[in-house]
């Protein structure tokens, strides 16, 4: 793949050095508010071995490009080039906060770049960053690509092993500040949609585990065992995500289906983590007064989704009942599944790699031809603009010459026009005088008045 990557820029198109291009682009952004897509592609493909100042320059340019008209729709070639050059320069950890901020930087990863990134982070044992990438892919709710599903499942399970049994931190209490009231035209209501606005990591982990469990990533010849693994991951995911009623509804369904066959429904470890998170889940006070709209924040809206104490107690009761029911027919198995899942996924990944690489090779070639077409189009348009300017200049010159030549015949009209033309009113400026000068003026005036008398 490396040879295709290094020859990705077509030779017929100009290759401008990085420093000059970046300065020109920032100029364009400040003058016109936009810089063309071709400039961005050129810039991003000339990133090799750059110093730290220039890295910040690139990040600034990406931000400004995203806030211009040309950035939509997001081009896969640009994102791929940025990610790949960051990986080559060993600064991929800097990318993670930019990938999280989709509105500001717009690095929406497609499947291949996500796989690359996750692979890079896992090789270096940076499980936290790898999991962040997996969460971003979950937000798109697109589980059609098998390799990405496998890789994100791998990252999430590894992260579960680290975080699953650790009590999450409590919400930071709002610091008491002085009352700074700010006047605004319209006070917008802060919105917490339960998807893009999630901040807590264990919520994101839980949600991605739930979705990946539904996508049936883990195959197995024995279908009931496959269901077992996927169901238990879904259950743990919902526990981490604090959607306990939903999880218990699903458990009821599985128990009802498994009672007749007496097959296991859950694993012991997952049940324990669910119980722990049930105990640790935060609680809200239903009798609290609602704050003014001006004082509300997104966190405040998020807290409205927590359980009350009564609901929590009801969930705990229901959970214990269902667990006893499952234990009555040996529904809870006692196995350590994480290692089994990881090995299973590794085998799958090795099978699916080759197809992915083949598809990406073709993509690089199509991007190359697209660049050539775009470049030729822009050159043609520039020539057209240049010719148009020349023609306009020539027309202006000719109009001047014509005026001079025909001036004698239009003498009378010119004189009339001169009379009728509006004259500029000359405004008299008010003189600013000091006190002494004022006194002198008043004295001279008084002297005049006296003289007249």
């Amino acid at each position, binding site marked *: 793949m490396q040879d295709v990557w290094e020859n990705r820029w077509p030779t017929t198109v100009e290759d401008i050095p990085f420093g000059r291009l970046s300065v020109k682009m920032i100029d364009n952004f400040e003058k016109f508010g936009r810089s063309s897509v071709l400039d961005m592609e050129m810039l991003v493909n000339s990133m090799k071995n750059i110093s730290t100042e220039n890295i910040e320059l690139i990040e600034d340019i990406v931000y400004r490009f995203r*806030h*211009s*008209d040309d950035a*939509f729709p*997001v081009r896969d070639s640009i994102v791929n080039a940025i990610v790949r050059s960051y990986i080559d320069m060993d600064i991929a950890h800097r990318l993670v906060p930019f990938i999280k901020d*989709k*509105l500001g930087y*717009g690095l*929406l990863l*497609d499947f291949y770049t996500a796989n690359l990134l996750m692979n890079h982070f896992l090789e270096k044992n940076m499980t936290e960053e790898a999991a962040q990438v997996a969460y971003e892919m979950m*937000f*798109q*709710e*697109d589980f059609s690509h098998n390799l990405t599903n496998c890789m994100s499942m791998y990252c999430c399970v590894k992260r579960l092993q680290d975080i699953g049994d650790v009590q999450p931190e409590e919400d930071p209490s709002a610091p008491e*500040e002085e*009352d*700074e*009231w*700010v*006047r*605004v*035209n*319209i*006070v*917008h*209501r802060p*919105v917490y*949609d339960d*998807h*893009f606005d999630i901040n807590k990591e264990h919520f994101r982990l839980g949600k991605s585990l739930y979705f990946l469990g539904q996508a049936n990533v883990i195959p197995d010849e024995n279908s009931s065992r496959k269901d077992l693994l996927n169901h238990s991951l879904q259950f743990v995911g919902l526990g981490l995500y604090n959607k306990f009623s939903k999880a218990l509804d699903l458990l009821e369904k599985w128990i009802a289906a498994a009672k007749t066959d007496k097959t296991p429904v859950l694993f012991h470890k997952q049940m324990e983590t669910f119980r722990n998170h049930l105990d640790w889940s935060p609680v809200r006070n239903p009798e609290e007064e609602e704050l*003014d*709209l*001006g*004082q509300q924040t997104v966190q405040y809206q998020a807290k409205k989704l927590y359980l009350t104490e009564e609901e929590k107690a009801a969930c705990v009761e229901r959970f214990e009942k269902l667990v006893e029911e499952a234990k009555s027919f040996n529904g809870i198995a006692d196995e350590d599944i994480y290692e089994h899942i990881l090995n299973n996924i590794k085998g799958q990944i090795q099978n699916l790699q080759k197809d992915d690489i083949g598809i990406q090779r073709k993509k690089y070639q199509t991007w190359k031809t697209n660049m050539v077409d775009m470049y030729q189009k822009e050159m043609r348009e520039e020539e057209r603009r240049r010719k148009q300017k020349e023609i306009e200049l020539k027309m202006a010159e000719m109009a001047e010459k014509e005026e001079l030549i025909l001036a004698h015949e239009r003498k009378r009209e010119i004189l009339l026009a001169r009379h009728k033309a509006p004259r500029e009113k000359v405004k008299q400026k008010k003189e600013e005088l000091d006190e002494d000068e004022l006194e002198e003026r008043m004295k001279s005036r008084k002297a005049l008045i006296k003289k007249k008398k």
Partner: protein
Amino acid sequence: MKLFGRHSFFHGKSLMELTAQLKNPKGRVVTRLTFERYPEKSYYILSHVEHGYSGQNLTGVAWGTKVFRGYKYPNITRIDAGGKRDWRLIPKEEEEEYCKIDKVHEPKFKPEDIDTRLPPLMEIVLERNLKQRNVAYEGIPKLEGFVTFNKDDVTKRGVYFNAQKSSDSQTQTS
């Protein structure tokens, strides 16, 4: 920091904000929170979104199939209200349940029930004008000469009249 001022009427997010964070907005279901005042289901299924920036504000236009109060419009409509902070994205799990249509709202009028008489002074003036210009007409001039209502036009569902703005309206006879 505490804000005070006029409270906003909307309490949601703008469509452009939501779709800018999605790589593939095609096929996603989206509703407006003001549609919750109707008992029937109304939503849009997105097909295409174009974004742009005007200054610091994210603007744009979307296209999608419209389902309003249970009735599904046949063609793809343009959504211009994407900038209003009134929208909600529906997760893919709940799409099936949400898109099931139970009831359909029927607009409560028939074209026969419309009163097409003109105001009395206008009738008198019209008759006089038409006589002066020697234009032939039958009976009393009525609204049908000015406006047309096409029952079969589905995009005008719920809209009563399609007013003609051409200058020939006064000479047309019913």
